[in-house]
């Protein structure tokens, strides 16, 4: 993976020195909170409901075992022995004290990790397909491009004060696992006439005005990527609204001006940026980056069919059925380690678990670890022959939950258990749903399903693109949960449709059960997923199931 050079290291050290001085000046009273707040946010430090929170970037979701060990150490020393992996491929520490944060940042910098541009109106952590570099369906590893974008955007002098935050996601595969259509800019690698390029999507985003991104360029040669991004961001920097925070995202710029107008302006600007751009220097630099993402030399392994292990152990079989994904090399597999044990907080990992994962990656995974936006951990390259041994160790650490892609593999934002902006809690709802369907033993019967929960309209839990989305609101001083159905974050991105009035915290679990029981009744076969059934049938039968019984209850 990408190794920081001296320039990167000096830059980080300098940033941390500056922040240490700023913290000291805040504590001594030399800086007011108004002066300090933007400075701490630039360094990923938020003040939440109960404590400070430090958000550390995991660029394109890629970590090595040394970095994972460091996250474990930081969690143990300065948090309460755990960390929380988020939908933006970041990790959040929920209990740091202000005085300790400079030490935490120095510790993280030792392994090239930092919290820069995890907040503020800048280009944020670039996210990528979590199966990048391993998936069978991939055109090319998108991470070298993500790294190039990270370098271009970090401390970019023109783009530190954009109208609003700016999020970029990249995928190298036709199956979009990076939700590119819900980002300010989404990049999808495509091939045309033997040449590799990008499809560029702009103006996607969730939040209070959810929008699916629109294609601004259906094919951009890879060499033109940076000047084109520069043209998009510069156009937005001029055109984006600064009068109203809620209308400042590029999705609104695209919506208000129309994609054709935005395209015209971007293309005009691109003519200039491209002329100024040193394409040869970029190509050389890109080759240098790409070399660091060279795939590991996979050992020649038996494409073990796993028949024996599967037959011998039903627990292993259930796990292998849900938590593995095809690797481009048939003797290997991509392993998803679920951070969604039934009843636990989605995305939380203890320091002990982080260390176990780091060691497993070292032993069986060629030293590679990925964090997914679905709040799970991935070992992208594991020889199939090693899977039974890997699984046995995962079980010892409570990391072998066989539920990836199922009803309990829920994305949930921190909600009112941590977040100061929340209007309701989301974690306990996720926990209750997971425990409820575990008790009913319906999880595997229901099959593929994405439930996503946000604790306010900011939609950090991606609820709009959940097959079932849940949005927590405050209705007259009561936590109330609104349901959307039929959302999809994949290449067929769709926003979910609201069903109607919301449900209380007690009634939301039975409400979800009614939806899923009607799905089980209505599906044509086990092969028809919830989303497919919803697309065939529309919302009506599910709404009937939801509200008919409600009325019966009330009567």
């Amino acid at each position, binding site marked *: 993976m990408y190794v920081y050079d001296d320039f990167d290291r000096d830059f980080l050290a300098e940033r941390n020195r500056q922040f240490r001085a700023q913290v000291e000046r805040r504590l001594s009273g030399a800086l007011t*909170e108004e002066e300090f707040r933007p400075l701490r946010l630039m360094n990923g430090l938020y003040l939440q409901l*109960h404590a400070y929170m430090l958000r550390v970037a995991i660029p394109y979701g890629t970590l090595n075992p040394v970095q994972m060990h460091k996250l474990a150490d930081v969690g143990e020393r300065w948090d*309460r022995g*755990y960390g929380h992996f988020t939908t933006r491929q970041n990790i959040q520490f929920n209990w740091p004290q*202000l005085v300790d944060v400079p030490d935490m940042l120095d510790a993280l910098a030792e392994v090239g990790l930092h919290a820069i541009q995890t907040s503020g109106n800048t280009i944020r952590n670039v996210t990528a397909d979590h199966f990048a570099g391993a998936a069978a369906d991939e055109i090319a590893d998108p991470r070298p491009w993500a790294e190039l974008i990270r370098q271009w955007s970090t401390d970019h002098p023109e783009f530190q004060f954009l109208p609003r935050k700016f999020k970029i996601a990249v995928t190298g595969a036709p199956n979009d696992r990076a939700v590119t259509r819900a980002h300010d800019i989404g990049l999808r690698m495509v091939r045309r006439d033997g040449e590799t390029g990008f499809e560029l999507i702009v103006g996607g985003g969730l939040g209070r005005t959810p929008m699916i991104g629109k294609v601004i360029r259906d094919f951009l040669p890879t060499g033109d990527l940076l000047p084109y991004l520069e043209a998009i961001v510069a156009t937005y920097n001029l055109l984006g609204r600064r009068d109203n925070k809620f209308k400042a995202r590029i999705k609104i710029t695209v919506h208000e001006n129309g994609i054709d107008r935005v395209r015209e302006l971007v293309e005009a600007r691109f003519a200039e940026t491209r002329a100024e751009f040193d394409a040869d220097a970029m190509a050389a630099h890109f080759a240098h980056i790409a070399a660091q993402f060279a795939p590991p030399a996979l050992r020649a392994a038996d494409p073990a069919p796993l028949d024996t292990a599967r037959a011998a152990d039903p627990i292993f079989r259930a796990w292998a059925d849900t938590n593995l994904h095809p690797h481009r090399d048939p003797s290997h597999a991509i392993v998803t380690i679920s951070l969604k044990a039934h009843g*636990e907080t989605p995305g939380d990992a203890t320091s002990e678990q982080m260390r176990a994962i780091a060691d497993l990656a070292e032993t069986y995974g060629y030293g590679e670890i990925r964090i997914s936006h679905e709040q799970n951990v991935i070992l992208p390259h594991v020889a199939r022959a090693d899977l039974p041994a890997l699984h046995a160790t995962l079980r010892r650490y409570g990391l072998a939950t066989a539920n990836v892609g199922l009803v309990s593999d829920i994305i949930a934002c921190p909600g009112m258990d941590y977040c100061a902006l929340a209007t309701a*809690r989301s974690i306990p709802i996720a926990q209750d749903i997971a425990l409820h369907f575990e008790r009913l033993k319906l999880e595997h019967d229901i099959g593929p399903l994405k439930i996503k929960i946000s604790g306010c309209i900011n939609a950090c839990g991606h609820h709009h693109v959940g097959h079932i989305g849940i949005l927590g609101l*405050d209705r007259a001083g009561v936590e109330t949960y609104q349901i959307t159905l039929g959302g999809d974050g994949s290449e067929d991105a769709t926003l979910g449709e609201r069903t109607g009035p919301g449900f209380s915290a007690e009634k939301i679990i039975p409400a979800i059960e009614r939806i899923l029981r009607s799905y089980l009744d209505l599906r044509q076969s086990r092969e028809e997923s919830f989303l497919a059934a919803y697309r065939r049938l529309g919302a009506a039968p599910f709404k009937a199931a939801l509200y008919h019984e409600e009325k019966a209850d009330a009567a």
Partner: protein
Amino acid sequence: MSSETLVQVITANLLREGHVVWLTPEGGWSRDLAGAQCFAGRPAAEAALARAAAQTDVVVGAYLASMRPTPAGPEPVHFREAFRRAGPSARARGVTQA
């Protein structure tokens, strides 16, 4: 419920540690809501808030929160204040403390 029965407390987060605290009758900060000073009238509450917010080297983000007075001390009217007092839901405190 009529608003006359409610009182106001002043709450904030500690600058250094981030902890949730309430203003006490002595002008200090308590991590226990039961120790909070209750203000019956708006003008008095707002005057006290202005003084409290001026302690910028001690607390961050001071504001007024409505409480229902009870013999055991003030009880939050809104669930957000109840969560601020209680901390994250027991099961949300991270796997180590579940």
